[in-house]
């Protein structure tokens, strides 16, 4: 007779989160999030991606505590030591710097670049796409033509040319990648806007006298976010790889900064005799972009089952 007596007791967190009929807006939102999380958790590969990513982020945050050496300290007497030798977990590079410690600090740079691009590029795309979709007419034609032009460009080459013009450095690399990455987001945002524009609730707000700026920022943007988030997560691996490529070419972070792409570039000369100098940073890049790919696939399956092709 437990069921009969229980209604008076407070529901557990789990019951509250799985409620069929939420009683408040906050609960409704929490239920949505929790069910998404449950679906996501059942996807093993996506969870692996999330775990790798969380691990790397923790490494980046606690880099000063986890590092065994100063990542910038050179010691020519200790150069090119193999992994595990004399307390250097992954060995040392051509200037005797500890590769393990440099990797930890390099994670900060990679995450910094990805976060910056992932904030700038979708924002540009969101603004252009929603304006084009909401305004329609010649504004739409012009903006979408510009988007198509950028979409037709080879990305890495264009980023190279941008960096060449702006000068090498992390911020310029971020700017160059963002300038070449926004067009897909603009297309998505425009498509979403077109479906939202003629709905009854937008008409209702228009009748209340809301202006276009208010409608776009307060009512259209929130509805575009979820599809943009999926796309951004899927693109993050690409951003990492492009950033590492620019670093490898000497156009991203400048030495002595422990950027992973630049570390591979430094180790390139020694690849045949001292394999670890170039190989280990590459594994780090591989791990982080693999994590983003797994996570993106999982998120897409949860948030957008139609697109997943399953």
């Amino acid at each position, binding site marked *: 007779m437990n069921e009969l007596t229980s209604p008076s007791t407070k529901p557990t967190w789990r019951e509250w989160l799985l409620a069929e009929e939420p009683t408040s807006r906050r609960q409704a939102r929490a239920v949505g999030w929790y069910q998404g999380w449950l679906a996501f958790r059942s996807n093993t590969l996506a969870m692996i991606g999330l775990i790798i990513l969380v691990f790397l982020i923790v490494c980046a945050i606690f880099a000063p505590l986890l590092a065994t050496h100063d990542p910038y300290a050179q010691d020519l007497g200790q150069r090119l030591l193999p992994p595990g030798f004399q307390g250097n977990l992954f060995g040392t590079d051509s200037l005797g710097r500890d590769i393990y410690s440099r990797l930890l600090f390099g994670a900060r740079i990679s995450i910094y670049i990805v976060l910056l691009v992932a904030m700038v590029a979708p924002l540009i795309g969101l603004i252009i796409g929603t304006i084009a979709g909401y305004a329609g007419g010649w504004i739409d034609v012009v903006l979408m033509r510009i988007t198509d032009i950028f979409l037709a460009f080879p990305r890495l080459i264009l980023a190279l040319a941008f960096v060449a013009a702006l000068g090498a450095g992390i911020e310029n690399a971020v700017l160059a990648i963002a300038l070449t990455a926004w067009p897909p987001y603009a297309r998505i945002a425009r498509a979403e806007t077109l479906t939202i524009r003629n709905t009854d609730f937008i008409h209702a707000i228009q009748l209340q006298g809301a202006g276009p700026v208010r409608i776009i920022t307060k009512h259209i943007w929130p509805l575009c976010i979820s599809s943009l988030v999926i796309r951004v997560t899927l693109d993050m691996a690409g951003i990492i*790889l492009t950033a590492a490529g620019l670093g490898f070419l000497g156009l991203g972070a400048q030495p002595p900064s422990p950027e992973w*792409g630049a570390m591979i570039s430094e180790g390139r000369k020694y690849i045949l005799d001292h394999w670890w100098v170039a190989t280990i940073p590459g594994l780090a890049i591989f791990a982080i972009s693999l994590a983003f790919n797994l996570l993106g696939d999982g998120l897409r399956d949860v948030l957008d089952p139609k697109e997943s092709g399953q």
Partner: protein
Amino acid sequence: MPPVPPWLKKLGSTLVTVAVTILGLLFVTFMIGRVMPIDPVLAVIGERATQEQYNEVFYDLGLDKPLIVQFAIYVANVLQGDFGTSIRTGQQVSDDIARVFPATLELATLGTLIGVFLGVPLGVLAAVRRGSWIDQLARFVGLIGYSMPIFWLGLVGLLLFYGILNWVSGPGRVGIFYQGIVEPITGMLLVDSTLRGEWEVFRDAFSHIILPASLLGYYSLAYISRMTRSFMLEQLNSEYIITARVKGLSERKVIWHHAFRNIRIQLITVIALAYANLLEGSVLTEIIFAWPGIGQYITVSLLANDMNAVLGGTIVIGTIFVCLNIFSDLLYRFFDPRSK
């Protein structure tokens, strides 16, 4: 006046699209050339020139005219194939590019061939045996391909197949003993040595190209197999396939004569895009393998602040990229009866 046939209209609008996109590309490269912190006049005459020399070059380059006029001059020059002079090599950028481009073309073509011949069957098999080990394998191959930095894979490939196993030759296009033996015809060494019957050179060139081409091929394989799989799945789930099976056709006939036939056009589109991506993706690979192609040309020029060469290379690759994109789009529209 007779009505314009619809295909002519389509062709006309496509040509306008190509023109507008390429004009946009030129505008972007033009602006990049303007915002760079290098004085274009000093780049030509050096830092120790007199004021008169400076002024002369300043007017020669048209820098006194309004920006829009400068852009018009720039477009006119580029359309005539004049990208200016390279500071680094001292030659016309167009001549330099004509010299290095065949090497990239050769590499990207071989890479795409490898990607197509392995990727299409893999994708078809993965779709037919959905959920089986081969499907998992295709997924794994794709995932690795999307996550690995291409320049790193190149280094590891060199270490493994050249450094340790010694199966292939190291960086470069051809061994030092074979250099300059074959008189260029197409500029593509494999083709030229075949045409001239120089089999020794062919063998050496092949042992140099096979590793970078396979790596590039791997990347297009990842893309092509994934797309093939999803196209095939879409077909295999449609009703005419069920009809064909009910009629008692053999599985082979159902797959290759019915389903595969219907994805051919989509596949060509994907292959064209993969090819365009390889032309671009070869930049990093060329650096690793010291391959004397356009990617290496752009990068080396970039490090030497030789902007004419960088922008010229960007325009050439960008134009090919745009044309391949639009070509695949056109193909799709002309040959797929559903889009009419």
